[in-house]
């Protein structure tokens, strides 16, 4: 297992480096001179020139990249053009909201999707199955920002059950926080629920054809025990893999859902920063998003390797 972990980490190194090059270049590809932007529009040329030297912008690109990478490794993401705060401070201030939203969305997805998939598989071809499979097709197609808008229209404006937007931190008042969290979490979670329901249904139907299920039934176990203890336990691995693959959707979806509900997370930060042309903040936030995504992908791969010895031992599929 250690060998597999090291090999997987080694494979990731070139990709990580290349990705950081792309993120580094963003600051140089956007229109405008960073030094001039930071100095302000009415700054004299000498000041801009001095600032450029101070920021190291007068050196060659590869040198700048190495310096930048060194700073990033030490946790220094630069200073925001607009608020003059360190970007890392801005990110840390917003990160809890995004983590809260994505985790809540994931939980909603699991809580709705898994039971729906199990019920659909149990009632294959009958009404509940039809209901679940058609809801899946629907929720896989409806964009989450429209789900959010319809949720606001229905549950906040028409029924007046929940607040339409904003956030209260959990430490201040857990109950109010939950009320603010419900609509965004469900908005983000519906897509995950649909995917989970679809895959757990297929996985369960496949497993239920296995001989050990027949054995379990022959032992006289009730159908529920057969399905949950024997069927579902074995269908869980492919379902978990699918869940790991949803990290990209969760992070991208968070950006959109945060915009719908004025949720003060990293997604709002990146969109606001683009609007303000605060490109150091954009760059830093992008880096954090990509780092989180890569980390989840790595963990998924490692978990998969831990569960499946064929992958751990480096045998390729089909070989």
């Amino acid at each position, binding site marked *: 297992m250690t060998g597999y972990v090291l090999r997987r980490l080694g494979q990731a190194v*070139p990709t990580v480096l290349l*990705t950081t090059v792309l993120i580094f270049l963003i600051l140089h590809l956007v229109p405008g001179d960073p030094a001039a932007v930071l100095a302000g529009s009415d700054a004299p040329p000498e000041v801009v020139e001095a600032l450029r030297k101070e920021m190291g912008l007068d050196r060659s690109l590869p040198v700048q990249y190495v310096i930048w990478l060194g700073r990033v490794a030490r946790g220094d993401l630069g200073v925001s053009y607009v608020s003059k705060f360190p970007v890392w401070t801005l990110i840390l201030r917003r990160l809890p909201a995004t983590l809260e939203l994505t985790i809540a969305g994931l939980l909603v997805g699991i809580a709705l999707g898994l039971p729906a998939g199990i019920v659909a598989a149990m009632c294959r071809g009958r009404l509940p199955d039809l209901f679940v499979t058609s809801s899946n097709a629907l929720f896989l197609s409806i964009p989450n920002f*429209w789900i959010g*808008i*319809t949720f606001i229209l229905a549950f906040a404006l028409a029924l007046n059950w929940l607040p339409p937007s904003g956030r209260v931190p959990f430490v201040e008042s857990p109950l109010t926080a939950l009320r603010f969290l419900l609509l965004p979490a469900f908005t983000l979670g519906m897509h995950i629920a649909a995917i989970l329901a679809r895959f757990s249904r297929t996985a369960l139907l496949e497993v239920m054809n296995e001989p050990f299920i027949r054995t379990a039934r022959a032992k006289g176990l009730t159908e529920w025990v057969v399905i949950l203890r024997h069927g579902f336990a074995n269908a869980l691995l492919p379902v978990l893999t699918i869940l790991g693959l949803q990290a*990209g959707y969760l992070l991208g979806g968070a950006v959109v859902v945060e*915009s719908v509900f004025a949720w003060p997370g990293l997604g709002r930060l990146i969109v606001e920063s683009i609007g303000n042309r605060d490109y150091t903040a954009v760059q830093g936030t992008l880096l954090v998003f990509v780092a989180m995504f890569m980390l989840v992908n790595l963990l998924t791969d490692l978990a998969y390797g831990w569960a499946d010895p064929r992958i751990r031992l480096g045998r390729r599929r089909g070989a």
Partner: protein
Amino acid sequence: MTDPAPPDTGATRAEGGAGRRRWRRLVRRYRSGLLGLPLVCAVLATAVLAARLAPSPPLEMNAGQELQPPLGRFLLGSDEFGRDLLSRILFGARISLVIGVTSVMIGTMLGGTAGVAAGFLGGRTETAVLRLADCLLSFPPLILGIAVATILGPGAMNAAVAVGIVTIPTFARLAWTSVLGEKTKDYVRAIESLGASGARIVGRHILPNVMGVLLVQMTIAMAQAVLLEASLSFLGLGTQPPNPSWGGMLNDSRAFLREAPWYGLFPGLALSLLLLGLNLTADSLRDLMDPHTRIR
């Protein structure tokens, strides 16, 4: 008007039964496509005929007619500038589809070519293409779209390029694996031994065999592209006002949800119908192309 009854012979009845059964089987198997394709065609038709169907120009403002409810002077109501929502939604279909098609073209051309080259040539080309694809795949799709849109600046065509770049790695990897699978087959070996050039082997023999897979991926990517463009426009990074795009209209509607709920409903409904149609069509196409599901 009634059709003349067919002569009642046992043979035709049996044939008709078999034919009907065949039809029923086809309908059941491609149920999703039979639902999806008409949806896509309907949106396509509205996009093409937008100028004829729309009651008024999409940018025409009517002072004093702001946020009018549906079924009055405006069939689907009006927006905060008194513009007809129906007309804007019809023209929005055009923007959605044009950007969708453009970005999928970019993805297929660049990603597909790079993937075919990587699979056929191998060696350094392969390593370079796969590394770059991995690198693009290490961004969550929407985040990559946002990054590219930031560099290019907001605008409809820039959004198309951004979305196109997001679809590149999937096409590259898919083309790569498909070509790898074909390259070692006997027919390629046979043409090779006849002395055909590399370009000829790829263009005339391998490409037609991997086209099916790429075509399915194009419909999947089309749904992804339409959604991404709408998301970028919703975040204010895609199509810019006053041009009508569904994502942008939904973004504008958020300020008026209390006074004008229909404003937030209709553009989203149009977008969801198009996405549903594209997804269902893609599902059916995938079933059609995949012999594993076809046999079952």
